[in-house]
């Protein structure tokens, strides 16, 4: 592999996913290609039903495409069997879901340590890592709480901690603030910002422009295909004061 490939954590070429057939054929993802570099934050924005969640599942190996390829750290996901795919998910991908998907009967720290236990790490090491990550997301004092006793924003932060436990190559977030109110959104926002600063690679799918604004690159999606791309970094234009109504 050439050097460029090393810098690209995630690559997709001509991804396609279709459901049904004949009259009922739905092209959820219709020929998507993208590259994500190490340390980049990429946001995919689009209206509901445009296929962005499906795209994320394809990138994370949670679903098999009907066409096209995905490479993660140089490995072709299409060639991996289920067992190796799970291993890859375990070690290299952290997933954050809109519905949080925490186990109701496990406390916060038990939820966070679960991927580590599934990976075969010792219970002590897994617990240590989980506590460390809960501190990172600012929930060290809630480690022993059940999800039912946590607010929406706190639950999502636990989920993010869980996604980080195996130190993944890329964190995939599917509408992370979809179920949150504005205050909780800001909590999660701050966390993503800090992850970005710390050098994590993030791919976030969202219809919330606030979350999208944390990205380096913003890709617009409609009807299963990418329609435009905006680079958000690189200098401010315009006077914030003017936005507030202050004349210069």
């Amino acid at each position, binding site marked *: 592999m050439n050097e460029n490939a090393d810098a690209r954590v995630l690559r997709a070429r001509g991804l396609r996913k279709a459901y049904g057939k004949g009259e009922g054929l739905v092209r959820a993802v219709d020929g998507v290609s993208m590259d994500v570099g190490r340390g980049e934050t990429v946001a995919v924005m689009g209206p509901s039903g445009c296929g962005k969640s499906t795209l994320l*599942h394809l990138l*994370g190996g949670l679903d098999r495409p009907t066409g096209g390829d995905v490479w993660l750290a140089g490995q072709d996901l299409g060639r991996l069997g289920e067992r190796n795919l799970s291993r890859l998910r375990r070690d290299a991908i952290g997933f954050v879901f809109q519905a949080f*998907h925490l*186990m109701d*009967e496990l406390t916060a720290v038990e939820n966070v*340590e679960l991927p580590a236990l*599934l990976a075969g790490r010792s219970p002590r090491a897994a617990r240590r890592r989980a506590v460390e990550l809960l501190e990172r997301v600012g929930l060290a004092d809630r480690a022993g709480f059940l999800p039912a006793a946590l607010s929406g924003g706190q639950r999502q932060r636990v989920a993010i901690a869980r996604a980080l436990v195996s130190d993944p190559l890329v964190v995939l977030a599917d509408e992370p603030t979809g179920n949150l109110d504005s205050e909780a959104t800001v909590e999660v926002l701050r966390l993503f910002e800090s992850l970005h600063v710390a050098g994590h690679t993030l791919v976030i799918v969202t219809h919330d422009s606030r979350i999208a604004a944390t990205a380096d690159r913003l890709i617009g999606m409609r009807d299963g295909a990418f329609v435009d791309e905006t680079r958000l970094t690189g200098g401010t234009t315009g006077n914030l004061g003017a936005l507030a109504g202050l004349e210069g």
Partner: protein
Amino acid sequence: MGKIVLIWRLAARDLRHRPAQAALLLLAVTAATAVLALGLALHGVTSQPYQQTRAATRGPDVVAQLGGPFQGPHGPGQPGSASQVPTEVRTLVHSSGVTGHSGPYPVASALLRVRGMTVAVEAEGRDQAPASVDQPKLTAGSWVRPGGVVIERTFAGALGVGVGDRVTLNGRLFTVAGIAVTAASPPFPNLCYQPGGGCVFDLPAKLSHDPIGLAWVIRADARTLAAAAAAPVSYFLNLRLSHPAAARAFVSHVSGVADLTAWQDIAAADGLLVLDEQQVLSPGALLAALLAVASVAVLAGGRMAENTRRIGLLKAAGATPGLVTVVLLAENVVLALAAAAIGLVVGRLAAPSITNPGVGLVGAPGAPALTLSIAGEVVAVAVATALAGTVVPAIRAARTSTVSALADGARRPRRGAVLISVSRRLPVPLLLGLRLVARRPGRALLSAASIAVTATAIVAILAFHTTVNLRIARVAHGLGDPVFTRDEQIMQVLTVVLVALAVLNVVVTAWATVQDTRHTSALARALGASPPQIGAAISAAQLIPALPGALLGIPLGIGLFAVASRGGIVTIPPAWWLAAAVLGILAAVDLLASVPARIGARRPPGEILQAENA
């Protein structure tokens, strides 16, 4: 009225929506009701064939044994001498209430040898002319003649002899002239039955505990046989009473004169053949019913979980909790009624082959096996089974507050903190499996209970086989015991039914677990567990409750056999049989659980998780 229509419509739509589960429920309850129908049908069978035999052979109301050592109701009497016999006969024949008699017929105890087998027989000496009371009815061949012996039908079947075969009695060669049935004695091997116990004849010691057969010879031959054996001759005297129903009263009234047996007691002894089958079928039916209840409970519980959201909608639309419960119960009751109907039909079709009351008696019971009361009982049990399995989930569902039903869609899993922390140290399949068990302790308990019931049945059958082997080993030289042969056949049928129900139970529980844990499994896979690990976890979740259940089945099974054999001999099966049974059950559970697990693991986790979002 409108409410009933509404209930009907909701119930019907729900059943159509889930045809597979409805079919499984139907199957489980049908199996149980079929076994139950058979068991109940057997109840009505016992006395009737005897009645037919009695009518066909002009059966006696009282049978007297004279001249040999006998046991009267007041204790052992004096060995009578030949000279006393005429006196006793006269006394009996002239007793009040006696309207007719036949005999006295001399009876010799003899040893019959054929094809290397040696069996003790009572050889009754008869005239060629038909008797007025107790003329045995021929089912093959012809009546006694010099050198010709007629053998009782069940006995002939056990010996494997037919008309024209040659046998020796006390060393003398005889030809089998015919096969016949009688109502004056219970068929082989219960011949030695006496109300007070004990056996009449003076036999060589080594055969004294073995069954004795009945045969008829010409009078002269009987005397010759007795002389050859150098044993005292005893006599049978058959009496007819003016009031046959009062036979037992007659016996106790006239006791002390001779050893008397009323026809009702002979009928009861006949029933022993069929009674043993009943001893097998009744506990069998109970076990089948228990397994059916377990299946229904799991199916109903699973469907309740799916339906909780629908229930929430029903309640939000104004249905009272009572109505909701009724709808849920109505579905299962309808299925139970259908199952009862099918079970009755199956029972009716299977009854003739089971209830053939032993070859010693004339006729087969036929249709009367299924009376209206039997049908009523079966239906009641079927409905009770459905209700028992459904009532707890239904009430819980009805009591769930509307808001939480709409929001959750499922019962909140329990948190088993101890199990969770213990499972952390275990390998992945056990980690997940143990946590799955902790989520639904009720279902684990039900699982354990149904495996316990299955293991109980299997261990009981093993105990039966061990005991039977020992007993047959004691019966003379290869002679089969028709009672146990029949029992064996019934056991086999019952085993098949119970094992089928148990398989159904395991598959249903595993399937319910897979459905219930669809979300958890998908999430675990998203977090990195591989499909084989998930499959192993679901298997583990079935095996963890199955182990104590299987082990519990051992003492329960032996206990059940002890109860069913009514104080007869119970031999505990050898340890390696029991170990093999337990391991076999566990292996079967593992295999059966892996099938739904594998099917459930085919869907990509992304699809399942996304569906949860909707």
